[in-house]
């Protein structure tokens, strides 16, 4: 046990590993500063770069980035009052108020130190989880692993915030997408429609980058510029550091909540951070200063959002069930190396596990240190409007997706999934279960067939492990029932532990903005049609290959039909009473800080903003498609050189000088990349 731990530490002394870890940390910090990317973006952007590497350096780099993303995402929240990621919006409540009182450095030092401690405690949690879970994991057979995959998808669907039916529909859609390609048991092609490209299955990077990355770009390009001037970086670091030491209990509590939130699939950094804030307020005797710059409101949440990422890794590596979106991608990466998480990783790759733990801890410390050093200069990055970053990110992400299979088709799939992701996001469908479902589809099927062939009949159902997991499956269902009852009961005494549900809406403009419009009805109807189509198509497969698709399609059909019915009913209710809109506009607890910057929108203004968002997103996706056409014609470099200035001048409306310099730099980077990293540029017809 300890031998493995220290040999892993010794292996980190290898300069090439340390180098990769450092690259990961720097990349993670920069990505954290850019709004809207977060841990998902960090892993998604770095993942393609790792394809040519060994597993150790690749993991060191990805973990390094993942560990520090939530350290630097605080900077924008504190200095601009515009959260860099949804989870940093919690820190904004107290951090921005503190910064406006001229104590920006105090707020930031509290946040950085808490992030560091959160990461360290998370790493300790991960270490402790290994010996605790080891005997358990080793006792698992394929029936338990099969139940775990089911549990993973359904927990993710139920625990994601909002409507359970939406979560289930999204999870089942993800499972269905994961089934595209060659069946693992019969080598039969499913849902490939005769296309050789689809018979390989859909690339994980394309799915993750499309549904999360491109959708994020499209929804943020149209975002208003931050017009407020950033708060000056004033005050002293020292006072914050001393104060932090007095709040150590909050640090530990926040970190533990974060780990727990991370272990649960579908409860990500955002929800975990709100939980930490809620408990900090609830347990404080003197609540006067919360929302007006209370250090306790910064310390707890900041340590929680870093430890969430460590908590996410626990079920990912030990059980093969991703705890969140970034770890779903890590899981996919391990599978491409042939490392099977779960029992195999505990027996054969224990050193890899400890390498991850050490990398996480070292990165947390280094990240906080770098943040102290470089915040002054890095903070400028938060002022860059997203529209300017858009084309650069787009070029990097598309290049990344190209690396896995080297096929242009992947890029088209990615853009199409970007549109899907945009509508999922806009209509309030959670996207985490979608990706988790996608990743788990094939393992689920494989474990099922192993189980069915090893045990005769249904005798495996009676195994104690299976029974326990089956019982666990019931819990979320009950929980969602309770939640529903709470809402229905008139809610004069609403439950008091779930503030994140109401608060989050006020943070992200787009998230769920199309809910309860014809658009969300259309999404539900389309889901019904997709599942019905899948059911019909799967009729032609052999009995073995058609079982999973059929079950998924049937379940999906039911979920999507219920969703459609809910949408129709909501529309009818809405027509009956129009003044409901008033009530919905006052989200539970937007504080005075938010009220000051955000005037309550009128219904008309909302409809207008919605149309504006849609038009911008449509234009952005059209631009992406145009870019791909250019790539097919002239190759990647030429396409970038043409596309970037056009986009910058017409969509982002930058000055010509900026556009030219930007394009030249991007072009130079693209030219240099293939010689520095194992990266190929797509070739065009004319090359």
């Amino acid at each position, binding site marked *: 046990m300890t031998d493995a731990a220290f040999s892993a530490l010794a292996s980190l002394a290898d300069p090439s590993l340390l180098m990769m870890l450092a690259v990961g940390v720097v990349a993670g910090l920069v990505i954290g500063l850019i709004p809207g990317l977060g841990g998902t973006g960090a892993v998604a952007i770095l993942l393609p770069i790792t394809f040519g590497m060994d597993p150790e350096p690749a993991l060191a780099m990805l973990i390094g980035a993942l560990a520090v993303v939530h350290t630097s995402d605080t900077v924008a929240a504190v200095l601009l009052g515009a959260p860099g990621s949804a989870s940093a919006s919690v820190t904004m409540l107290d951090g921005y108020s503190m910064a406006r009182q001229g104590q920006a450095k105090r707020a930031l030092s509290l946040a950085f130190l808490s992030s560091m401690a959160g990461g360290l405690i998370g790493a300790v949690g991960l270490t402790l989880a290994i010996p605790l879970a080891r005997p358990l994991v080793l006792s698992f057979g394929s029936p338990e692993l099969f139940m775990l995959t089911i549990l993973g998808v359904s927990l993710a669907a139920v625990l994601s915030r909002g409507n359970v039916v939406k979560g289930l529909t999204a999870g089942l859609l993800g499972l269905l997408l994961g089934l595209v390609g060659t069946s693992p048991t019969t080598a039969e092609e499913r849902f490939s429609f005769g296309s050789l490209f689809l018979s390989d299955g859909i690339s994980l990077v394309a799915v993750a980058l499309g549904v999360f990355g491109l959708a994020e770009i499209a929804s943020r390009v149209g975002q208003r510029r931050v017009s407020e001037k950033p708060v000056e970086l004033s005050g002293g670091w020292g006072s914050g550091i001393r104060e932090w030491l007095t709040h150590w209990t909050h640090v530990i509590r926040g970190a533990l909540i974060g780990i727990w939130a991370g272990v649960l699939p579908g409860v990500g950094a955002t929800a975990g951070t709100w939980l930490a804030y809620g408990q900090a*307020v609830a347990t404080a005797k003197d609540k*006067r200063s*919360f929302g007006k710059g209370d250090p306790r409101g910064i310390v707890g949440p900041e340590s929680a959002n870093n430890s969430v990422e460590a908590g996410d890794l626990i079920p990912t590596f030990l059980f093969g069930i991703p705890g969140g979106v970034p770890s779903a991608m890590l899981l996919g990466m391990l599978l491409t190396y042939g490392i099977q998480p779960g029992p195999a990783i505990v027996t054969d790759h224990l050193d890899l596990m400890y390498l991850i733990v050490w990398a996480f801890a070292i990165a947390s410390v280094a990240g906080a240190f770098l943040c102290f050093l470089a915040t002054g200069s890095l903070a400028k990055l938060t002022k860059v409007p997203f529209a300017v970053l858009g084309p650069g990110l787009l070029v990097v992400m598309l290049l990344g997706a190209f690396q896995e299979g080297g096929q242009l088709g992947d890029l088209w799939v990615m853009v199409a999934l970007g549109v899907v992701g945009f509508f999922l996001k806009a209509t309030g469908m959670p996207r985490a279960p979608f990706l988790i479902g996608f990743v788990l589809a094939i393992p689920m099927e494989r474990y099922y067939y192993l189980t069915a062939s090893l045990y005769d009949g249904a005798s495996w159902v009676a195994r104690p492990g299976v029974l326990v997991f089956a019982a666990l499956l019931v819990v979320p269902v009950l929980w969602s029932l309770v939640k529903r009852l709470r809402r229905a009961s008139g809610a*004069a005494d609403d*439950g*008091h*532990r779930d503030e994140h549900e109401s608060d989050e809406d006020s943070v992200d403009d787009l998230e769920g903005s199309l809910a309860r419009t014809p658009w969300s009805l259309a999404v539900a109807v389309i889901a019904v049609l997709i599942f019905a189509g899948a059911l019909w198509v799967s009729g032609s497969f052999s009995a073995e290959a058609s079982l999973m698709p059929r079950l998924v399609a049937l379940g999906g059909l039911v979920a999507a039909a219920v969703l459609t019915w809910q949408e129709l009913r909501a529309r009818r209710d809405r027509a009956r009473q129009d003044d409901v809109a008033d009530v919905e506009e*006052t989200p539970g*607890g937007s504080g005075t800080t938010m009220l000051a910057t955000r005037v309550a929108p009128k219904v008309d203004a909302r409809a207008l903003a919605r149309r504006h968002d849609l038009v911008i997103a449509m234009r952005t996706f059209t631009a992406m498609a145009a870019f791909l056409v250019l790539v097919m014609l002239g190759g990647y470099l030429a396409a970038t050189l043409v596309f970037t200035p056009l986009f910058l001048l017409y969509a982002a409306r930058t000055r010509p000088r900026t556009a030219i310099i930007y394009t030249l730099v991007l072009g130079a980077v693209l030219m240099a990349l293939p010689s520095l990293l194992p990266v190929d540029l797509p070739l065009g017809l004319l090359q």
Partner: protein
Amino acid sequence: MTIVVAYADTPPGHAAVTGAVAESREGEPVVIVPAVRGERSPEVGEVESRWPDLAGRVEVERGDLGDPADTVIQVAQRLDARLIVLGLRTRTPVGKLVFGSTAQRILLDATCPVLSVKPPVAAT
């Protein structure tokens, strides 16, 4: 001194305001805090027309926190209130177990006296 009312647009909530009116001294400010998540906060005008005694000395305050119980206590602490008034509604033990209780948390966590009132029997 100030009186803080945990307000809801329900019979117990209205009883709480009435209770605060009865308790308040001449000209003492009464601050209404909406204690139901997602409910529209009442206009000062509405409250004044319903309880004319409060005209000119009632305010509505929303606080900075998501949780209603925490919000009520926070406002009371900030204003250094003399008293919090809240309305109780009838709850079975099972109902309490399932739904939690804002009233209970205010009672337990408040740092000033709390007056709890019930609506007239006919109204519940």
